[in-house]
């Protein structure tokens, strides 16, 4: 499969017509049994969908059409994302689409674009993200994995951790230290690594939910061709920070917890809890926390639709969305009473519900992508302008 430029100009369609086409396609083609999954799907489960979208030309809605994407305007992109959420479509391994593609388009060489973009579109290259290290979590810039130039190669030594689905990825985009003598942010470079390179060892880590989704990756004298450096040497921090607006608001989407809220409502109804004013008070408070999240979310969506750059204040979205989600899963657990500790999907008074999965999966939501505490630091420093 080569680089098939999408012929349709979706931006020329009316919003309603575009939404209708996307919705119909999703409803007709997305596997029913994979809707609203509580966990990350494995490549074996989701790859058919990836290939389906790829053949349709819809796998990279955010990429320009000349690179095989849909070239959606911010307005249309929001609609596309809304329809994904509405239908409960699971997240495929999308780092190549969301991160690597746009980064190569902006910072990469022609050669890199030609080599990687078509293979990402085709699902031939699956990327994982090599950022965190055992001693570089929230303080990511202190990462130590070393890349030392040796002729036409960089030689990598070090360790990455919390690398989601590394065991199923063909490639890693990785931040490495290329200068130890300067300010920590100024000595980091961005590279692409083939996971089959000798010296790469992947060890999956079992998470609280019982799944092996994240991994440790050990790098021992791994030789990476010098042409795999993306952008300039020691400019990796800037490249990694150039996050897309969509990613920054998508994490705060109010639709993510909708399914859990409906399950909670069903369960509460079957238990007669809506006759209990104490429960109704707590439930309504949570519902309004989510409804009001939608109000502030749409404020940011409008900014993105206008093509404007989001400010640091968008951090508040992640804090509120994720903390609200956690409280929702906690109430679900409480309402389930003794069933609240039973693993897997169970039938409680006629309602089929997995109580523990949402509870588990909402835990790291306040840790990954910048913990709630880091988000608060960002708001304190850049928005409230408090001293350090």
């Amino acid at each position: 499969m080569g680089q098939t430029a999408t012929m349709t100009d979706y931006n020329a369609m009316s919003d309603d017509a575009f939404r209708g086409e996307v919705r119909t396609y999703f409803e007709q083609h997305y596997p029913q049994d994979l809707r609203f999954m509580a966990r990350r799907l494995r490549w074996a489960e989701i790859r058919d969908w990836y290939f389906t979208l790829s053949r349709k030309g819809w796998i990279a809605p955010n990429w320009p059409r000349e690179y095989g994407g849909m070239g959606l305007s911010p307005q249309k992109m929001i609609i596309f994302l809304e329809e994904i959420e509405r239908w409960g479509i699971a997240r495929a391994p999308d780092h190549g689409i969301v991160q690597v593609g746009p980064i190569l388009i902006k910072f990469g060489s022609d050669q890199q674009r030609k080599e990687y973009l078509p293979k990402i579109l085709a699902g031939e290259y699956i990327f994982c993200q090599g950022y965190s290290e055992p001693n570089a979590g929230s303080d990511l810039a202190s990462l130590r994995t070393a890349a030392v130039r040796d002729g036409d190669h960089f030689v990598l030594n070090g360790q990455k951790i919390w690398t989601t689905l590394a065991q199923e990825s063909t490639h890693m985009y990785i931040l490495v230290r290329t200068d130890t003598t300067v300010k920590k942010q100024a000595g980091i470079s961005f590279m692409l690594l083939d996971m089959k390179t000798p010296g790469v060892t992947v060890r999956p880590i079992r998470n609280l939910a019982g799944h092996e989704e994240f991994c440790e990756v050990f790098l021992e004298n791994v030789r990476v061709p010098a042409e795999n450096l993306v952008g300039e040497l020691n400019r990796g921090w800037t490249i990694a920070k150039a996050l897309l607006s969509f990613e920054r608001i998508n994490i705060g989407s109010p639709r993510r917890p909708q399914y859990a809220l409906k399950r909670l409502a069903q369960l509460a109804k079957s238990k007669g809890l809506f006759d209990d004013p104490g429960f109704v008070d707590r439930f309504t408070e949570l519902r309004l926390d989510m409804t009001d999240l939608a109000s502030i979310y749409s404020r940011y969506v409008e900014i993105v639709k206008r093509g404007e750059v989001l400010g640091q204040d968008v951090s508040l979205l992640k804090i509120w969305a994720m903390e609200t989600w956690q409280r929702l899963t906690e109430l679900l657990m409480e309402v389930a009473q003794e069933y609240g500790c039973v693993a897997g999907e169970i039938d409680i008074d006629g309602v089929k519900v997995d109580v523990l999965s949402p509870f588990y999966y909402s835990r790291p939501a306040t840790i990954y992508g910048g913990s709630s505490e880091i988000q608060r630091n960002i708001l304190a420093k850049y928005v409230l302008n408090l001293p350090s």
Partner: protein
Amino acid sequence: MSEPDDDSHAALLAQSVDDFVKRGTSLARVRKLRDDPAEYDRTIWKTMAELGWLGMLVPEAYGGLGLGLSEAAIVARGLARELVPEPLTAAAVLATGALVAGDNGALQQSLLPQIVAGDLLPVLAWQERAGTLDVTAINAQAIAAKGDWRLNGEKRFIAGAAGADGYIVSVVSTVAAAGLELYWVPREAEGVALRLETLADGRHFGVLTLNDVLVPAAHRVAGVAVARTVLDQAIDHAAVIVGAELCGVMGRALAMSVDYMKTRVQFGKAIGSFQALQHRAVDLYVQQQIASAVLEEALPALDRKPDAVTRAALASRVKARCSEAGLRITREAIQIHGAIGFTDEYDAGLYLKRAVVLAAWLGNAQEHRRRYARLVPPEFE
């Protein structure tokens, strides 16, 4: 409301509010009026009339600006930042809104121009008991008296009553088409007695007693056919504008706290450098942003005149969120300031006390959340 002028009206109003708060009012004035049973200043009220604020929701035919809640919110929010004590929401939104929506054209013709000019200050006396927004939960009565009406009853929680010139009173009429009606009752009418309850912020709730008060049929603001709708709408709209006031109050209280954190030095550093306090301030900022997002989403939606359930649900969301956030931010402002925050001399307390009043008036957060739950059942599928 004429669409193309929306933005220019908003900009002009914002400018007039800015000018007014710089020159026309101060916290010293607010403090002085705290001890005054008159509660507010009728010369300032006249100024507000000249700025067009008293006629924002009044049709142009009656001398008003014919604008919407979006514009009223700009003014209310701006004035609340400086704790302006004049009863803009009580008179120009709640009472005037009821009169405008009523079905007595002749009475509108005679009263509205005086209201817009600031010469007549009306308040709405609808409530008799705490803890309900049900406008029919009343005992006040109107009994037919030879073509006129005789009113009896007691009304409570009447904001702005201290210096009002008259009251729009809800009663149940006891004739054939029995039901809720609204009457205009001038302050000086015989049988009218007003008692004042002092509120946290030094303002007052009026307790109005009507003892065989004789009113002509011509003073019926709204008849049985419309009175309930008129009241429900006026209360929803006023609750939203109170939400705007709360946004003004919390915005100023938060700014005050953050400024204090930057200047107050302990342990050799500005206390704003301590992470525990930073995160505390950020949580307040998050609540403030959510409150203002809910308000800003509700205002244009309400100006598009939605059905009654949508309107009430929006109003409840705004009042619940703004009350909760307003109270939290002003409470924590005291904590962030430390002991100085607990003194009467320092301004943080003024903001807390105003938030306490605004949060309680027209239904507190809990009450509005419960109403929302009744109005909008949860989704099960």
